[in-house]
Protein backbone atom coordinates (compact mmCIF):
# COMPACT_ATOMS: atom_id res chain seq x y z
CA UNK A 1 0.00 0.00 0.00
CA UNK A 2 2.65 2.41 -1.01
CA UNK A 3 0.08 4.83 -2.34
CA UNK A 4 -0.87 5.91 1.14
CA UNK A 5 2.62 7.07 1.85
CA UNK A 6 2.62 8.67 -1.54
CA UNK A 7 -0.52 10.54 -0.66
CA UNK A 8 1.00 11.75 2.59
CA UNK A 9 3.63 13.58 0.62
CA UNK A 10 1.02 14.93 -1.74
CA UNK A 11 -1.05 16.35 1.08
CA UNK A 12 1.98 18.00 2.62
CA UNK A 13 2.75 19.37 -0.83
CA UNK A 14 -0.77 20.70 -1.26
CA UNK A 15 -0.01 23.41 1.30
CA UNK A 16 2.77 24.89 -0.81
CA UNK A 17 2.11 27.63 -3.35
CA UNK A 18 1.98 26.41 -6.91
CA UNK A 19 5.23 28.12 -7.88
CA UNK A 20 7.10 26.06 -5.29
CA UNK A 21 5.97 22.81 -6.92
CA UNK A 22 8.42 23.17 -9.78
CA UNK A 23 9.52 19.58 -9.39
CA UNK A 24 5.97 18.23 -9.60
CA UNK A 25 5.85 14.47 -10.25
CA UNK A 26 5.41 13.46 -13.85
CA UNK A 27 2.21 11.80 -14.97
CA UNK A 28 2.57 8.02 -15.27
CA UNK A 29 0.25 7.24 -18.16
CA UNK A 30 0.07 3.51 -17.34
CA UNK A 31 -0.95 4.05 -13.72
CA UNK A 32 -3.35 6.84 -14.67
CA UNK A 33 -5.01 4.77 -17.39
CA UNK A 34 -5.61 1.88 -14.99
CA UNK A 35 -6.88 4.18 -12.24
CA UNK A 36 -9.35 5.82 -14.64
CA UNK A 37 -10.45 2.38 -15.82
CA UNK A 38 -10.81 1.20 -12.22
CA UNK A 39 -12.88 4.26 -11.38
CA UNK A 40 -15.25 3.38 -14.19
CA UNK A 41 -15.37 -0.26 -13.12
CA UNK A 42 -16.26 0.63 -9.52
CA UNK A 43 -19.12 2.83 -10.73
CA UNK A 44 -20.37 -0.15 -12.76
CA UNK A 45 -20.77 -2.02 -9.48
CA UNK A 46 -23.56 0.35 -8.41
CA UNK A 47 -26.03 -0.53 -11.21
CA UNK A 48 -24.76 -4.09 -10.64
CA UNK A 49 -25.83 -3.83 -7.01
CA UNK A 50 -29.13 -2.26 -8.09
CA UNK A 51 -29.82 -5.31 -10.28
CA UNK A 52 -28.66 -7.72 -7.57
CA UNK A 53 -31.03 -6.19 -5.02
CA UNK A 54 -33.72 -5.35 -7.59
CA UNK A 55 -34.04 -8.99 -8.55
CA UNK A 56 -34.34 -10.17 -4.95
CA UNK A 57 -37.34 -8.09 -3.87
CA UNK A 58 -41.01 -8.63 -4.72
CA UNK A 59 -42.45 -7.34 -8.03
CA UNK A 60 -44.00 -4.27 -6.41
CA UNK A 61 -40.68 -2.97 -5.04
CA UNK A 62 -38.24 -3.42 -7.94
CA UNK A 63 -37.86 0.22 -8.96
CA UNK A 64 -37.93 1.52 -5.40
CA UNK A 65 -35.11 -0.85 -4.50
CA UNK A 66 -33.03 -0.05 -7.58
CA UNK A 67 -33.56 3.65 -6.87
CA UNK A 68 -31.79 3.22 -3.53
CA UNK A 69 -28.57 2.46 -5.38
CA UNK A 70 -29.13 5.11 -8.03
CA UNK A 71 -29.94 7.67 -5.33
CA UNK A 72 -26.52 6.97 -3.86
CA UNK A 73 -24.93 7.72 -7.24
CA UNK A 74 -26.74 11.04 -7.43
CA UNK A 75 -26.54 12.15 -3.79
CA UNK A 76 -23.02 11.02 -2.97
CA UNK A 77 -21.82 11.99 -6.43
CA UNK A 78 -22.57 15.58 -5.49
CA UNK A 79 -21.74 15.35 -1.80
CA UNK A 80 -18.30 13.83 -2.35
CA UNK A 81 -16.97 16.66 -4.48
CA UNK A 82 -18.52 19.34 -2.25
CA UNK A 83 -17.25 18.18 1.17
CA UNK A 84 -16.73 14.39 1.20
CA UNK A 85 -13.21 14.35 -0.18
CA UNK A 86 -12.16 17.23 2.08
CA UNK A 87 -13.56 15.42 5.14
CA UNK A 88 -11.88 12.14 4.22
CA UNK A 89 -8.52 13.16 2.82
CA UNK A 90 -7.86 16.56 4.39
CA UNK A 91 -5.30 16.67 7.21
CA UNK A 92 -6.44 15.60 10.72
CA UNK A 93 -9.09 17.81 12.30
CA UNK A 94 -10.99 17.49 15.61
CA UNK A 95 -8.12 15.46 17.07
CA UNK A 96 -8.02 13.09 14.12
CA UNK A 97 -11.73 12.18 14.28
CA UNK A 98 -12.05 13.42 10.72
CA UNK A 99 -10.03 15.24 8.08
CA UNK A 100 -10.61 18.74 6.81
CA UNK A 101 -9.12 21.10 4.28
CA UNK A 102 -10.96 24.13 2.95
CA UNK A 103 -8.97 23.96 -0.25
CA UNK A 104 -10.42 20.54 -1.06
CA UNK A 105 -14.00 21.85 -0.99
CA UNK A 106 -15.26 21.43 -4.58
CA UNK A 107 -11.81 19.90 -5.21
CA UNK A 108 -10.48 23.43 -5.90
CA UNK A 109 -6.92 22.89 -4.70
CA UNK A 110 -6.23 19.79 -6.82
CA UNK A 111 -6.78 21.40 -10.20
CA UNK A 112 -3.11 21.04 -11.12
CA UNK A 113 -2.01 18.24 -8.82
CA UNK A 114 -0.24 15.13 -10.01
CA UNK A 115 0.25 12.78 -7.04
CA UNK A 116 3.70 11.28 -6.46
CA UNK A 117 2.23 7.95 -7.62
CA UNK A 118 2.14 9.58 -11.05
CA UNK A 119 -1.64 9.94 -11.23
CA UNK A 120 -3.71 13.14 -11.32
CA UNK A 121 -5.34 13.76 -7.94
CA UNK A 122 -8.65 14.17 -9.80
CA UNK A 123 -8.45 10.49 -10.76
CA UNK A 124 -7.72 9.51 -7.15
CA UNK A 125 -10.55 11.69 -5.81
CA UNK A 126 -13.04 10.24 -8.29
CA UNK A 127 -11.87 6.68 -7.58
CA UNK A 128 -12.39 7.24 -3.86
CA UNK A 129 -15.73 8.89 -4.59
CA UNK A 130 -17.05 5.67 -6.13
CA UNK A 131 -16.32 3.83 -2.86
CA UNK A 132 -18.30 6.49 -1.02
CA UNK A 133 -21.21 5.86 -3.42
CA UNK A 134 -21.36 2.09 -3.16
CA UNK A 135 -20.95 1.87 0.63
CA UNK A 136 -24.28 3.49 1.62
CA UNK A 137 -25.96 1.73 -1.34
CA UNK A 138 -25.04 -1.62 0.25
CA UNK A 139 -27.05 -0.75 3.38
CA UNK A 140 -30.26 -0.66 1.31
CA UNK A 141 -30.28 -4.46 1.20
CA UNK A 142 -30.94 -4.70 4.94
CA UNK A 143 -33.98 -2.42 4.88
CA UNK A 144 -35.43 -3.17 1.45
CA UNK A 145 -39.17 -2.94 0.79
CA UNK A 146 -40.04 -0.75 3.79
CA UNK A 147 -38.20 2.56 3.65
CA UNK A 148 -39.34 5.92 2.24
CA UNK A 149 -37.35 7.48 -0.57
CA UNK A 150 -36.86 10.87 1.06
CA UNK A 151 -35.93 9.19 4.35
CA UNK A 152 -33.35 7.15 2.48
CA UNK A 153 -31.89 10.22 0.74
CA UNK A 154 -31.62 12.06 4.07
CA UNK A 155 -30.14 8.99 5.74
CA UNK A 156 -27.38 8.39 3.21
CA UNK A 157 -26.45 12.07 3.12
CA UNK A 158 -25.89 12.11 6.88
CA UNK A 159 -24.38 8.65 6.92
CA UNK A 160 -21.70 9.51 4.37
CA UNK A 161 -20.76 12.69 6.26
CA UNK A 162 -20.80 11.26 9.78
CA UNK A 163 -19.87 7.60 9.29
CA UNK A 164 -18.17 7.00 5.95
CA UNK A 165 -15.92 10.06 5.82
CA UNK A 166 -14.50 9.63 9.35
CA UNK A 167 -13.87 5.89 8.81
CA UNK A 168 -12.31 6.52 5.42
CA UNK A 169 -10.05 9.11 7.03
CA UNK A 170 -8.98 6.77 9.85
CA UNK A 171 -8.11 3.92 7.52
CA UNK A 172 -6.75 5.53 4.38
CA UNK A 173 -5.60 9.06 5.15
CA UNK A 174 -1.87 8.97 5.86
CA UNK A 175 -2.41 10.59 9.25
CA UNK A 176 -5.44 8.43 10.07
CA UNK A 177 -5.18 6.47 13.27
CA UNK A 178 -5.92 2.96 11.91
CA UNK A 179 -3.30 3.68 9.26
CA UNK A 180 -0.72 4.16 11.99
CA UNK A 181 -1.61 1.27 14.32
CA UNK A 182 1.18 -1.21 15.03
CA UNK A 183 4.11 -1.87 12.71
CA UNK A 184 2.52 -1.39 9.30
CA UNK A 185 -0.97 -0.20 10.23
CA UNK A 186 -4.24 -2.11 10.23
CA UNK A 187 -4.36 -4.03 6.95
CA UNK A 188 -7.35 -2.92 4.90
CA UNK A 189 -6.37 -2.97 1.27
CA UNK A 190 -9.58 -1.95 -0.46
CA UNK A 191 -12.16 -1.38 2.22
CA UNK A 192 -13.07 -4.41 4.35
CA UNK A 193 -13.66 -2.20 7.39
CA UNK A 194 -14.58 1.11 5.75
CA UNK A 195 -16.91 -0.33 3.13
CA UNK A 196 -18.15 -3.78 4.09
CA UNK A 197 -18.08 -3.95 7.89
CA UNK A 198 -19.35 -0.40 8.30
CA UNK A 199 -22.23 -0.85 5.83
CA UNK A 200 -23.01 -4.40 7.00
CA UNK A 201 -23.38 -3.53 10.68
CA UNK A 202 -25.15 -0.26 9.79
CA UNK A 203 -27.62 -2.37 7.81
CA UNK A 204 -28.20 -4.66 10.79
CA UNK A 205 -28.68 -1.70 13.14
CA UNK A 206 -31.08 -0.01 10.71
CA UNK A 207 -33.04 -3.24 10.13
CA UNK A 208 -33.48 -3.68 13.89
CA UNK A 209 -34.39 -0.01 14.29
CA UNK A 210 -37.08 -0.13 11.58
CA UNK A 211 -38.42 -3.57 12.46
CA UNK A 212 -39.48 -6.30 10.07
CA UNK A 213 -41.61 -5.98 6.96
CA UNK A 214 -45.33 -6.65 7.48
CA UNK A 215 -45.94 -10.36 7.38
CA UNK A 216 -42.26 -11.30 7.82
CA UNK A 217 -41.35 -14.13 8.30
CA UNK A 218 -44.79 -15.78 7.87
CA UNK A 219 -45.54 -14.55 4.35
CA UNK A 220 -43.34 -15.93 1.60
CA UNK A 221 -41.35 -13.05 0.09
CA UNK A 222 -39.86 -14.60 -3.01
CA UNK A 223 -37.39 -12.89 -5.36
CA UNK A 224 -39.18 -11.49 -8.42
CA UNK A 225 -36.39 -12.02 -10.95
CA UNK A 226 -33.25 -14.00 -10.19
CA UNK A 227 -32.00 -13.32 -13.71
CA UNK A 228 -31.41 -9.72 -12.62
CA UNK A 229 -29.67 -10.97 -9.51
CA UNK A 230 -27.26 -13.15 -11.48
CA UNK A 231 -26.47 -10.37 -13.96
CA UNK A 232 -25.96 -8.04 -11.00
CA UNK A 233 -23.59 -10.50 -9.32
CA UNK A 234 -21.67 -10.78 -12.60
CA UNK A 235 -21.36 -7.01 -12.92
CA UNK A 236 -20.21 -6.80 -9.30
CA UNK A 237 -17.52 -9.41 -9.95
CA UNK A 238 -16.23 -7.53 -13.00
CA UNK A 239 -16.40 -4.18 -11.21
CA UNK A 240 -14.58 -5.61 -8.21
CA UNK A 241 -11.38 -5.88 -10.25
CA UNK A 242 -11.41 -2.09 -10.32
CA UNK A 243 -12.33 -1.98 -6.65
CA UNK A 244 -9.43 -4.18 -5.51
CA UNK A 245 -6.78 -3.98 -8.20
CA UNK A 246 -7.43 -0.24 -8.59
CA UNK A 247 -6.69 0.26 -4.90
CA UNK A 248 -2.99 -0.24 -5.57
CA UNK A 249 -3.03 3.21 -7.26
CA UNK A 250 -0.46 1.84 -9.65
CA UNK A 251 -0.21 -0.46 -12.62
CA UNK A 252 2.36 -2.97 -11.48
CA UNK A 253 3.07 -6.22 -9.64
CA UNK A 254 0.89 -5.25 -6.67
CA UNK A 255 -2.02 -4.55 -9.03
CA UNK A 256 -1.72 -7.95 -10.68
CA UNK A 257 -1.51 -9.68 -7.29
CA UNK A 258 -4.72 -7.97 -6.13
CA UNK A 259 -6.51 -8.86 -9.36
CA UNK A 260 -5.46 -12.51 -9.11
CA UNK A 261 -6.58 -13.07 -5.53
CA UNK A 262 -9.88 -11.29 -6.26
CA UNK A 263 -10.65 -13.76 -9.05
CA UNK A 264 -9.65 -16.75 -6.95
CA UNK A 265 -11.55 -15.80 -3.79
CA UNK A 266 -14.78 -15.06 -5.69
CA UNK A 267 -14.65 -18.39 -7.49
CA UNK A 268 -13.83 -20.29 -4.27
CA UNK A 269 -16.70 -18.56 -2.48
CA UNK A 270 -19.18 -19.42 -5.24
CA UNK A 271 -18.05 -23.04 -5.42
CA UNK A 272 -18.20 -23.52 -1.65
CA UNK A 273 -21.65 -21.97 -1.30
CA UNK A 274 -23.13 -24.12 -4.07
CA UNK A 275 -21.51 -27.22 -2.55
CA UNK A 276 -22.92 -26.43 0.89
CA UNK A 277 -26.39 -26.01 -0.58
CA UNK A 278 -26.18 -29.21 -2.55
CA UNK A 279 -25.16 -31.12 0.56
CA UNK A 280 -27.75 -29.51 2.83
CA UNK A 281 -30.77 -29.03 0.55
CA UNK A 282 -29.94 -31.24 -2.41
CA UNK A 283 -30.20 -28.36 -4.91
CA UNK A 284 -27.58 -25.91 -6.17
CA UNK A 285 -29.41 -22.59 -6.59
CA UNK A 286 -28.59 -19.56 -8.70
CA UNK A 287 -29.13 -17.35 -5.65
CA UNK A 288 -26.54 -19.48 -3.83
CA UNK A 289 -24.08 -19.00 -6.69
CA UNK A 290 -24.60 -15.22 -6.60
CA UNK A 291 -24.29 -15.11 -2.81
CA UNK A 292 -21.09 -17.18 -2.84
CA UNK A 293 -19.52 -14.87 -5.42
CA UNK A 294 -20.33 -11.90 -3.22
CA UNK A 295 -19.04 -13.56 -0.03
CA UNK A 296 -15.73 -14.35 -1.75
CA UNK A 297 -15.38 -10.82 -3.13
CA UNK A 298 -16.17 -9.22 0.22
CA UNK A 299 -13.71 -11.35 2.17
CA UNK A 300 -10.80 -10.69 -0.17
CA UNK A 301 -11.33 -6.93 -0.19
CA UNK A 302 -9.23 -6.10 2.89
CA UNK A 303 -6.79 -8.90 2.11
CA UNK A 304 -6.06 -8.36 -1.60
CA UNK A 305 -2.74 -6.65 -0.95
CA UNK A 306 -1.22 -9.16 1.46
CA UNK A 307 -2.39 -12.71 0.74
CA UNK A 308 -1.34 -15.17 -1.94
CA UNK A 309 -3.48 -17.53 -3.99
CA UNK A 310 -3.65 -20.25 -1.31
CA UNK A 311 -4.84 -17.73 1.25
CA UNK A 312 -7.40 -16.33 -1.19
CA UNK A 313 -8.82 -19.82 -1.83
CA UNK A 314 -9.06 -20.47 1.90
CA UNK A 315 -10.60 -17.08 2.69
CA UNK A 316 -13.19 -17.44 -0.10
CA UNK A 317 -14.24 -20.87 1.18
CA UNK A 318 -14.30 -19.78 4.84
CA UNK A 319 -16.35 -16.68 4.00
CA UNK A 320 -18.93 -18.73 2.09
CA UNK A 321 -19.32 -21.07 5.12
CA UNK A 322 -19.52 -18.15 7.57
CA UNK A 323 -22.08 -16.16 5.54
CA UNK A 324 -24.13 -19.29 4.81
CA UNK A 325 -24.19 -20.02 8.55
CA UNK A 326 -25.07 -16.43 9.42
CA UNK A 327 -28.10 -16.49 7.11
CA UNK A 328 -29.32 -19.75 8.70
CA UNK A 329 -28.83 -18.11 12.10
CA UNK A 330 -30.78 -15.04 10.92
CA UNK A 331 -33.70 -17.24 9.94
CA UNK A 332 -33.65 -18.80 13.42
CA UNK A 333 -33.41 -15.45 15.22
CA UNK A 334 -36.08 -13.90 13.01
CA UNK A 335 -34.73 -10.37 12.45
CA UNK A 336 -35.44 -8.96 8.99
CA UNK A 337 -32.12 -8.28 7.24
CA UNK A 338 -34.15 -8.47 4.03
CA UNK A 339 -31.47 -9.13 1.41
CA UNK A 340 -28.69 -10.11 3.82
CA UNK A 341 -26.56 -6.97 3.74
CA UNK A 342 -25.23 -7.90 7.19
CA UNK A 343 -25.27 -11.63 6.44
CA UNK A 344 -22.85 -11.19 3.56
CA UNK A 345 -21.11 -7.79 3.78
CA UNK A 346 -20.90 -7.59 7.57
CA UNK A 347 -20.00 -11.22 8.12
CA UNK A 348 -17.68 -11.50 5.11
CA UNK A 349 -15.97 -8.22 5.99
CA UNK A 350 -15.29 -9.31 9.57
CA UNK A 351 -14.03 -12.74 8.51
CA UNK A 352 -11.75 -11.08 5.96
CA UNK A 353 -10.33 -8.36 8.19
CA UNK A 354 -9.49 -10.85 10.99
CA UNK A 355 -8.83 -13.94 8.88
CA UNK A 356 -6.35 -12.30 6.52
CA UNK A 357 -3.81 -12.18 9.37
CA UNK A 358 -3.27 -15.94 9.07
CA UNK A 359 -2.45 -15.76 5.36
CA UNK A 360 -0.17 -12.71 5.03
CA UNK A 361 2.80 -13.30 2.70
CA UNK A 362 6.29 -13.67 4.23
CA UNK A 363 7.78 -10.53 2.68
CA UNK A 364 5.13 -8.42 4.46
CA UNK A 365 6.05 -9.95 7.81
CA UNK A 366 9.71 -9.29 7.09
CA UNK A 367 9.00 -5.61 6.39
CA UNK A 368 6.88 -5.36 9.53
CA UNK A 369 9.58 -7.00 11.63
CA UNK A 370 12.15 -4.58 10.23
CA UNK A 371 10.01 -1.68 11.46
CA UNK A 372 9.05 -3.19 14.81
CA UNK A 373 11.34 -6.04 15.87
CA UNK A 374 9.45 -9.14 16.94
CA UNK A 375 6.24 -8.06 15.21
CA UNK A 376 4.18 -11.21 14.69
CA UNK A 377 0.83 -12.82 14.20
CA UNK A 378 -0.61 -12.07 17.65
CA UNK A 379 0.42 -8.41 17.54
CA UNK A 380 -1.12 -7.94 14.10
CA UNK A 381 -4.24 -9.87 15.15
CA UNK A 382 -4.73 -7.36 17.97
CA UNK A 383 -4.43 -4.46 15.52
CA UNK A 384 -6.94 -6.05 13.14
CA UNK A 385 -9.30 -6.88 15.99
CA UNK A 386 -9.13 -3.33 17.28
CA UNK A 387 -9.85 -1.87 13.83
CA UNK A 388 -12.84 -4.20 13.39
CA UNK A 389 -14.20 -3.52 16.89
CA UNK A 390 -13.84 0.25 16.57
CA UNK A 391 -15.51 0.22 13.14
CA UNK A 392 -18.47 -1.83 14.41
CA UNK A 393 -18.96 0.32 17.49
CA UNK A 394 -18.65 3.62 15.63
CA UNK A 395 -20.89 2.59 12.74
CA UNK A 396 -23.65 1.09 14.92
CA UNK A 397 -23.83 4.03 17.34
CA UNK A 398 -23.77 6.69 14.61
CA UNK A 399 -26.23 4.79 12.39
CA UNK A 400 -28.76 4.55 15.23
CA UNK A 401 -28.40 8.26 16.01
CA UNK A 402 -28.88 9.22 12.36
CA UNK A 403 -31.80 6.81 11.93
CA UNK A 404 -33.52 8.24 15.01
CA UNK A 405 -33.07 11.78 13.75
CA UNK A 406 -34.26 11.05 10.21
CA UNK A 407 -37.27 9.06 11.46
CA UNK A 408 -38.32 12.04 13.62
CA UNK A 409 -37.70 14.75 11.02
CA UNK A 410 -38.61 13.34 7.60
CA UNK A 411 -39.83 9.80 8.32
CA UNK A 412 -37.85 6.70 7.43
CA UNK A 413 -40.24 3.77 7.76
CA UNK A 414 -42.80 3.59 4.95
CA UNK A 415 -46.47 3.52 6.01
CA UNK A 416 -48.36 0.25 5.97
CA UNK A 417 -50.34 1.32 2.89
CA UNK A 418 -47.15 2.08 0.96
CA UNK A 419 -45.65 -1.22 2.03
CA UNK A 420 -48.72 -3.19 0.96
CA UNK A 421 -49.07 -1.56 -2.46
CA UNK A 422 -45.35 -1.41 -3.03
CA UNK A 423 -42.75 1.34 -3.21
CA UNK A 424 -42.84 1.48 -7.02
CA UNK A 425 -46.41 2.62 -7.41
CA UNK A 426 -46.92 4.50 -4.15
CA UNK A 427 -43.66 6.44 -3.98
CA UNK A 428 -42.51 6.67 -7.57
CA UNK A 429 -45.82 6.37 -9.48
CA UNK A 430 -44.34 3.72 -11.75
CA UNK A 431 -44.22 -0.02 -12.25
CA UNK A 432 -41.19 -2.11 -13.09
CA UNK A 433 -42.75 -4.39 -15.65
CA UNK A 434 -44.87 -3.46 -18.65
CA UNK A 435 -48.24 -4.41 -17.23
CA UNK A 436 -49.47 -0.87 -16.75
CA UNK A 437 -50.25 -0.39 -20.41
CA UNK A 438 -50.71 -3.48 -22.51
CA UNK A 439 -51.27 -1.50 -25.67
Amino acid at each position, binding site marked *: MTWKRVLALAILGAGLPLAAQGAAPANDSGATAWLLTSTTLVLLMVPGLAMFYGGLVRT*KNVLGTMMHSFAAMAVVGVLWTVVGYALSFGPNALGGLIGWSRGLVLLRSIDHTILPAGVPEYAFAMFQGKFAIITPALIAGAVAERITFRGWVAFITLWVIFVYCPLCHWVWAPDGFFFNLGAKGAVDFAGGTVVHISSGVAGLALALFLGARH*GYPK*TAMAPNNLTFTLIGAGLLWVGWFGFNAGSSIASNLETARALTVTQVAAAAGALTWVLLETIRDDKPTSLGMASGILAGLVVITPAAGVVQVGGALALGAIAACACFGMIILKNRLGYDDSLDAFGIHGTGGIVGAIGLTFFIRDSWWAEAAAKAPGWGLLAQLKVQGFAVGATILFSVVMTLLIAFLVEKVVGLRASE*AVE*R*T*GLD*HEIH*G*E*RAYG*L*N*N*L*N
Partner: protein
Amino acid sequence: MKLITAIIPEEKLDEVREALIEAEIERITVSRVSGHGRQQEIVVQRGKKVVPNLIPKVQITIACNDDFEGITVDTIIRTARHGKGEVGDGKIFVQDLKECIRIRTGERGGQAI
Protein backbone atom coordinates in the same frame (compact mmCIF):
# COMPACT_ATOMS: atom_id res chain seq x y z
CA MET B 1 -71.16 -25.51 -7.60
CA LYS B 2 -70.16 -21.92 -8.27
CA LEU B 3 -67.27 -20.28 -10.04
CA ILE B 4 -66.33 -17.01 -8.40
CA THR B 5 -64.13 -14.60 -10.31
CA ALA B 6 -63.06 -11.43 -8.51
CA ILE B 7 -61.11 -8.49 -9.92
CA ILE B 8 -59.41 -6.71 -7.03
CA PRO B 9 -56.77 -3.98 -6.50
CA GLU B 10 -53.22 -5.39 -6.57
CA GLU B 11 -52.31 -4.20 -3.10
CA LYS B 12 -55.31 -5.97 -1.56
CA LEU B 13 -54.20 -9.46 -2.64
CA ASP B 14 -52.36 -10.31 0.57
CA GLU B 15 -55.20 -9.11 2.77
CA VAL B 16 -57.88 -10.93 0.77
CA ARG B 17 -55.84 -14.10 0.66
CA GLU B 18 -55.11 -14.08 4.39
CA ALA B 19 -58.81 -13.59 5.17
CA LEU B 20 -59.86 -16.36 2.76
CA ILE B 21 -57.39 -18.79 4.33
CA GLU B 22 -58.79 -17.89 7.73
CA ALA B 23 -62.26 -18.75 6.40
CA GLU B 24 -60.80 -22.11 5.25
CA ILE B 25 -60.99 -21.27 1.56
CA GLU B 26 -57.51 -22.19 0.46
CA ARG B 27 -57.88 -23.38 -3.14
CA ILE B 28 -57.44 -20.43 -5.42
CA THR B 29 -55.99 -19.33 -8.76
CA VAL B 30 -54.45 -15.86 -8.99
CA SER B 31 -53.48 -13.96 -12.13
CA ARG B 32 -52.32 -10.48 -13.06
CA VAL B 33 -54.71 -8.81 -15.43
CA SER B 34 -55.18 -5.40 -17.04
CA GLY B 35 -58.52 -3.85 -17.72
CA HIS B 36 -60.79 -0.88 -17.80
CA GLY B 37 -63.66 -0.06 -15.51
CA ARG B 38 -64.73 3.30 -14.16
CA GLN B 39 -61.39 4.04 -12.52
CA GLN B 40 -58.96 6.46 -14.15
CA GLU B 41 -55.39 6.54 -13.03
CA ILE B 42 -53.19 9.44 -14.04
CA VAL B 43 -49.51 8.66 -14.44
CA VAL B 44 -46.85 11.36 -14.82
CA GLN B 45 -44.02 10.47 -17.18
CA ARG B 46 -41.25 13.05 -17.58
CA GLY B 47 -43.64 15.75 -16.42
CA LYS B 48 -46.37 14.79 -18.89
CA LYS B 49 -49.70 13.46 -17.63
CA VAL B 50 -50.68 10.18 -19.21
CA VAL B 51 -53.93 8.30 -18.68
CA PRO B 52 -53.31 4.61 -19.34
CA ASN B 53 -56.51 3.12 -20.71
CA LEU B 54 -55.81 -0.21 -19.08
CA ILE B 55 -55.09 -0.47 -15.36
CA PRO B 56 -53.36 -3.45 -13.73
CA LYS B 57 -55.47 -5.50 -11.33
CA VAL B 58 -55.35 -8.93 -9.75
CA GLN B 59 -57.89 -11.58 -10.68
CA ILE B 60 -58.72 -14.41 -8.31
CA THR B 61 -60.71 -17.42 -9.35
CA ILE B 62 -62.30 -19.77 -6.85
CA ALA B 63 -64.48 -22.78 -7.53
CA CYS B 64 -66.62 -23.78 -4.54
CA ASN B 65 -69.67 -25.73 -3.45
CA ASP B 66 -72.88 -23.73 -3.13
CA ASP B 67 -72.64 -23.50 0.69
CA PHE B 68 -69.38 -21.59 0.46
CA GLU B 69 -70.54 -18.95 -2.01
CA GLY B 70 -71.75 -16.54 0.68
CA ILE B 71 -68.70 -16.61 2.90
CA THR B 72 -66.31 -16.37 -0.05
CA VAL B 73 -68.06 -13.35 -1.55
CA ASP B 74 -68.46 -11.63 1.84
CA THR B 75 -64.81 -12.15 2.72
CA ILE B 76 -63.64 -10.67 -0.58
CA ILE B 77 -65.95 -7.66 -0.27
CA ARG B 78 -64.85 -6.99 3.30
CA THR B 79 -61.11 -7.15 2.60
CA ALA B 80 -60.79 -5.78 -0.94
CA ARG B 81 -62.72 -2.57 -0.26
CA HIS B 82 -60.77 0.62 0.51
CA GLY B 83 -62.36 2.20 3.60
CA LYS B 84 -66.03 2.86 2.81
CA GLY B 85 -65.50 2.02 -0.84
CA GLU B 86 -63.73 3.75 -3.73
CA VAL B 87 -63.90 3.65 -7.50
CA GLY B 88 -61.43 0.94 -8.48
CA ASP B 89 -62.17 -1.49 -5.66
CA GLY B 90 -63.10 -4.10 -8.26
CA LYS B 91 -65.93 -6.54 -9.05
CA ILE B 92 -67.00 -10.06 -8.28
CA PHE B 93 -68.67 -12.33 -10.85
CA VAL B 94 -70.47 -15.48 -9.72
CA GLN B 95 -71.40 -18.16 -12.25
CA ASP B 96 -72.97 -21.58 -12.02
CA LEU B 97 -70.34 -24.21 -12.56
CA LYS B 98 -71.39 -27.13 -14.73
CA GLU B 99 -68.69 -29.61 -13.86
CA CYS B 100 -65.48 -29.99 -11.88
CA ILE B 101 -63.05 -32.85 -12.42
CA ARG B 102 -59.94 -33.72 -10.45
CA ILE B 103 -57.44 -34.88 -13.05
CA ARG B 104 -55.47 -37.15 -10.70
CA THR B 105 -58.42 -39.38 -9.70
CA GLY B 106 -61.06 -38.60 -12.29
CA GLU B 107 -63.52 -37.66 -9.47
CA ARG B 108 -66.37 -35.42 -10.60
CA GLY B 109 -68.67 -32.87 -9.01
CA GLY B 110 -68.66 -31.36 -5.53
CA GLN B 111 -66.12 -33.77 -4.04
CA ALA B 112 -63.56 -32.80 -6.68
CA ILE B 113 -63.54 -29.14 -5.56
